[in-house]
């Protein structure tokens, strides 16, 4: 369960958001510039709200009044970005293990083999990142995020750089993660069909 009650403003941009999200997948829908990615950035800790608080289960991630602002690496919130952002100096396997290795053993809740077979990327492990197709890149990025055993998974338009055919190929993987891995997700997209397919509850952001 994530409780968000924040106010954020920068020059001509303003975002107020107050919701408790407890569904397995929450969809955030809105046109570009409506602040979807900003909201994810605020939850992940890349940017800080001007006021308010964010709580994930029992952990306070941000609280202006109590001067709490956990840095991103301590939040256990993983983000899958639109552009994958795999590390180009590591091969697929080392990318997948990047967050896994940083997670203490007792906190790991998902197996390497489970993830690679779920996403059907077992055959890609030895490949270099630049040898992957767009769809493969996003599957590896997804696996990498899952393997850090996050308490919350943020998906920031993970399919928008793919064509329609590839989107149709990846969506079932996301569905599979939702059904088989018990990690709550916030899914951001400007594509209503994608969101309706995955999300249990949808919010629309308007600016």
């Amino acid at each position: 369960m994530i409780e968000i009650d924040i106010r954020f403003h920068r020059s001509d941009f303003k975002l107020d958001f107050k919701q408790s999200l407890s569904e397995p997948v929450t969809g955030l829908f809105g046109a570009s510039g409506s602040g979807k990615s900003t909201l994810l950035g605020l939850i992940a800790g890349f940017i800080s709200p001007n006021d308010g608080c964010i709580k994930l289960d029992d952990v306070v991630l941000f609280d202006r009044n109590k001067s709490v602002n956990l840095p991103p690496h301590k939040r256990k919130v993983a983000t899958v970005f639109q552009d994958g952002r795999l590390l180009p100096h590591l091969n697929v396997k080392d990318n997948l293990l990047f967050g896994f290795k940083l997670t203490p053993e007792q906190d790991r809740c998902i197996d390497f083999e489970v993830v690679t077979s779920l996403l059907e990327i077992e055959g890609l492990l030895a490949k270099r990142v630049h040898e992957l197709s767009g769809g493969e890149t996003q599957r590896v990025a997804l696996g990498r995020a899952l393997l850090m055993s996050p308490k919350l998974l943020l998906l920031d338009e993970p399919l928008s750089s793919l064509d329609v055919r590839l989107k149709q190929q990846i969506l079932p993987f996301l569905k599979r993660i939702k059904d088989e891995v018990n990690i709550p997700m916030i899914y951001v997209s400007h594509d209503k069909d994608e969101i309706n397919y995955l999300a249990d509850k949808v919010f629309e952001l308007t600016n």
Partner: protein
Amino acid sequence: MIDSTFLVLSHAEIEALTLSVKVATFCTLLICIPAIAVAWLLAKKTFIGKSLFDGLVHIPLILPPVVPGFLLLILLGNQGLIGKWLHETFGITIAFTWMGAVIASAVMAFPLMVRSTRQAISQVDSKLEIAAQSLGASPLKVFLNVTLPLSLPGVITGLILAFSRSLGEFGATITFVGNIEGETRTLPLAIYSFTQTPNGDLAAMRLVLLSVLIALAAIVLSNHLERKAAKKMGRV
């Protein structure tokens, strides 16, 4: 005039060569980590007095080398501000020793290493660093596991530039540590000495050739390592 003995190095020449390599190696080791730290600071951080700090780091590039040499003598000479204390407290003498030659060339080589490393670090896509953070990497781990490996070609270039600068260092060295055979007479100082000696041209020429060979080797090595690093990252 030129016969086969032309290629045989005399004892003094070998001494100058090994001393140069020793000084350049220690110089490179000495500045490696501080230069990377300063490069990171300049590439990634904003702070009060940054332009002044930037200027101070780079000033040895612009000054006549004799100036840093003289300042080092004032600071680290046996009667100098710090040198006197080092000498009286620990019995350490830096001026007119090979360690002083290391420091003189370190001051001159430092900005070159910083420049090359800084440029490489600022070219690393900060989106990748953010992604690594979100996967649980602390700022230090992000630097060691993402930023540094991705800027490796620039770091390698910087190291080789620093090594070569140190090999060629003349002005600051001769001002700070003099030209003492076996102690501070590096390749360039030996060449200079031979040119001042009657009939020293042949020996000077041998050392000049040697310097050219070393310089060429450094450039070839630098290009090779850079290509290798770039290939590893899939940029080729």
